[in-house]
């Protein structure tokens, strides 16, 4: 049997089945084909696999040291600005997007090419080995890690057949009995093919994982939406604040449901103010079905027809009304302010573009403090995430909000280019402090502002990734294959019996020799050979081999 083994595999077990002694392949004689074959053999060698694995580990590290675009684009911009030319170069070299960079991709793609190039021939070989008979009994047992030799009474053939029966039945070996002539019989036996099966399954499942990830990348979508309590949204592209999807995603396939946030509950630890529970009470309506009340919590996403809805954030939305100089209501409604810290000091912007003709647009920028405490003149902090004493602190801008430039704007930021900040007589910026129910006059005759009250909002992520089931299946297959491959022992045993030509007075005597070989480290090998011989011969037989030191350390 000329078996396949990856170049550089250090394993006596497969070596016995192959004439390949595993020394580095000779440099090819001639020709492009020869070189290609040589390169392929190198790429699919154990040494290159090892090298690529080590490289992969090393290449993954910079992603934890530099900010990454995929996680925190703002931090990346800040870093580049702060580091000048160095920042630009790091950017060019892909250090801010390590996991999508050319070099990182090259490493893992090469690794997977190597993996496939190695695993397919191994699978073929293993398939054949599973159907073949166990390898013939070697002539000499001298080099095996477990050996035994004993002289007994009995007849070689009967003894060997008994051994074969025992191995085949109780110990799940595949056996083959050989008549070696001259009164000598032997049995070869092998078990644990599952070990290699598990190993192959493990590696193939890794390929499956990679393919499933790519498949999900193509077909997934992810959307974010902020909903104020009492409001809702429909699962369609236009209702989302952000929407991101794979190349092969089809927007027509969005599950047509609507979701309304009825109420939002939060609970905080009284002493530490740490969050203890968030619950969004929602009503979901699917087409042709009655509305149903559901809850969404962190760690408990809602599944609507395969789309997952996650609770990602929450906060307060002050409800405000702005009347312009003409006394017309220019804006009225809740405006989500984003919490910045544990005590919900929240930042937000009110944009009022729809003022009566000819007047400047108004922008209000500032903070909402759920429980405000005064630290000094014009100095407020929030001391509790619960809305026990809310305060809205705003500065006032007027001019052109820049909304009709066509460039999408961040709703949580003011574009200060076309705006001027209102100042008082001494040139200090005007700040307005409002409690719920308060109405104040805006500076420069811009109109009035009323703080009507507060509502809760929740931030939801919606997502569908059709590959999730596949990912889980491949991951679990990999785990099972790995465990099988590491913990199922693969062993070969040989027992040979031949008539002794020694002393004839006591009837025929038989010399029994035995040997065992295992794949990898296997402390159970010598004991197993001992048990088999004892079961066949009826008395203990000393087995030489690796001393059973490991018995002390809880082997199998």
């Amino acid at each position: 049997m000329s078996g396949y083994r990856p170049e550089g595999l250090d394993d006596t077990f497969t070596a016995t089945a192959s004439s390949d002694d595993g020394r580095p392949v000779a440099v090819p004689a001639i020709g492009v084909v020869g070189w290609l074959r040589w390169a392929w053999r190198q790429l699919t060698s154990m040494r290159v696999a090892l090298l690529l694995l080590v490289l992969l580990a090393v290449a993954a590290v910079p992603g934890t040291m530099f900010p990454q675009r995929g996680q925190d684009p703002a931090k990346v911009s800040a870093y580049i600005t702060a580091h000048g030319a160095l920042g630009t170069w790091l950017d060019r070299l892909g250090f801010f997007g390590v996991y999508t960079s050319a070099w990182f991709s090259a490493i893992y793609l090469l690794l997977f090419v190597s993996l496939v190039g190695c695993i397919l021939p191994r699978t073929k070989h293993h398939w054949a080995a599973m159907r073949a008979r166990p390898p013939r009994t070697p002539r000499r047992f001298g080099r095996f890690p477990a050996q035994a030799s004993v002289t007994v009474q009995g007849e070689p053939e009967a003894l060997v057949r008994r051994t074969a029966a025992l191995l085949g039945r109780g110990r799940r070996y595949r056996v083959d009995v050989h008549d070696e002539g001259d009164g000598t019989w032997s049995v070869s036996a092998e078990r644990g093919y599952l070990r290699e099966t598990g190993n192959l399954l493990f590696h193939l499942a890794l390929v499956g994982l990679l393919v499933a990830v790519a498949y999900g990348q193509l077909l997934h979508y992810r959307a974010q939406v902020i909903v104020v309590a009492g409001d809702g949204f429909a699962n369609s592209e236009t209702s989302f604040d952000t929407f991101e999807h794979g190349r092969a995603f089809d927007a027509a396939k969005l599950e047509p449901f609507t979701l309304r946030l009825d109420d939002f509950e939060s609970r905080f630890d009284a002493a530490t103010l740490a969050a203890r529970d968030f619950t969004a009470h929602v009503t979901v309506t699917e087409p042709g079905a009655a509305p149903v009340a559901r809850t969404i919590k962190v760690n408990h996403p809602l599944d609507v027809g395969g789309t997952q809805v996650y609770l990602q954030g929450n906060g307060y939305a002050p409800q405000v009304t702005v009347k312009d100089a003409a006394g017309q209501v220019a804006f009225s409604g809740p405006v989500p302010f984003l919490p910045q810290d544990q005590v919900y000091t929240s930042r937000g912007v009110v944009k009022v573009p729809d003022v009566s003709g000819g007047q400047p647009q108004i922008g209000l920028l500032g903070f909402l403090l759920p429980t405000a405490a005064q630290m000094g003149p014009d100095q407020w902090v929030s001391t509790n995430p619960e809305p026990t004493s809310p305060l809205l602190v705003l500065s006032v801008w007027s001019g052109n909000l820049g909304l009709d430039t066509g460039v999408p704007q961040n709703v949580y930021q003011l574009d200060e280019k076309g705006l001027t900040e209102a100042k008082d007589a001494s040139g200090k910026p005007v700040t307005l402090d409002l409690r719920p129910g308060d109405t104040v006059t805006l500076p420069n005759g811009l109109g009035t502002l009323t703080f009507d009250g507060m509502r809760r909002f929740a931030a939801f992520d919606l997502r569908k990734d059709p590959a999730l089931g596949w990912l889980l299946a491949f991951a679990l297959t990999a785990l099972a294959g790995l465990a099988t491959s590491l913990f199922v022992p693969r062993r070969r045993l040989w027992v040979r019996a031949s008539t002794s030509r020694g002393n004839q007075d006591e009837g025929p005597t038989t010399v029994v020799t035995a040997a065992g070989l295992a794949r990898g480290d296997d402390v159970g090998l010598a004991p197993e050979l001992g048990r088999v011989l004892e079961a066949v011969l009826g008395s203990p037989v000393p087995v030489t081999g690796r001393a059973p030191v490991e018995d002390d350390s809880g082997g199998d």
Partner: protein
Amino acid sequence: MPVGDLSTLFVWAAATAFTVALFGYSVALARIADAAARPRQAARTAKVAAATAAKTANRQRVPALAGAGASSSYASALPPTPTDVEPAAGAASAPVATAARPAGTGRGSGAKAEGIARSTHWLGIALLVIGIVLRGVAAGRWPTANMYEFSLVGVLVATSVLAVVQRRRIIAFVGVVVTAIAVLALVLALNAFFVRADAVQPALQSYWLVIHVGVAISATGVFTVALGTSVTQLLSAARAENRSRLATPWGRADALRRPLVGWRVTGPRFAWLKQVPDALHLEALSFRLNAVGFVLWTFTLIAGSIWAEHAWGRYWNWDPKEVGTFVVWVVYAAYLHARTTRGWSGRRAAYLVFAGYAAVLANFTVVNLFVAGLHSYSGLR
């Protein structure tokens, strides 16, 4: 006394017990070293007496070194030079010690020290279990939510695995390595990572806290014992092969080497290595532990992704903690490969164990404390 404080008290008690165990293992180690030196002493003394002039001259180079780093029990020992090693001994170069210790203290008190180590080791485990259970009671949840609790449970797993591995035969050096790490980790946890027992934030309220974190910590514990075994393996191999970087001059940096010469692995200080299983066996033991650790770590990775999918809607986000876990996994995968790659088994594979364990530690400390990410749960900020 509040339950939380009681828990802390038990953890301190456990740390104390492990310290005694550490001491016990160390004494056992020293005794083994003595015992290893004794049997061939008579023969060696005779040999020394009959030593040729050339050999004496050869030794003359070393007395300066003997004075430099030798401990009291070896104060009068002549450190062997490489030429001193009997080929027949194969494994170790026995020191020509004139141990002036009364007979009977060697193996006997070594066994006593081993007994003390073993019993305080188990006592420490018991105390720690109580401490952890009380911690869980005080917090009203499974106690694996912050670095303090990670450390406690990790130490429990490491010391338990060690106890199981050593249940029949004690490899004192592995005991020293693992209990030293255990004591350090506990004291560090009590002093630097401690946070009040409390409920957790909504993101951590999940049974995955038990599964994912619990398995990750167990894997860390198993990796710790494997590390100890691999260190022993390298020392054992170096001594068996009579290979020490400290034995030959370092050229210009030789001044740095000289004070360390007493610590060369071929020297008398490491005579106890004769008593440990040979490098091959240690390698096999380390492999089996690492294999178990790797399977657990694979599970950790998978469970973490499932949890991330539940909590954040992203099974993989290249968050620093995720990257760290991935790096650890890949390094140990490389180790498993190295073992079956020609030219890489044995010593080089053991280096990958060190790299892997370093990554485990970095992932636990550096990433938790100094890198911001979704996994910032140390409770220390």
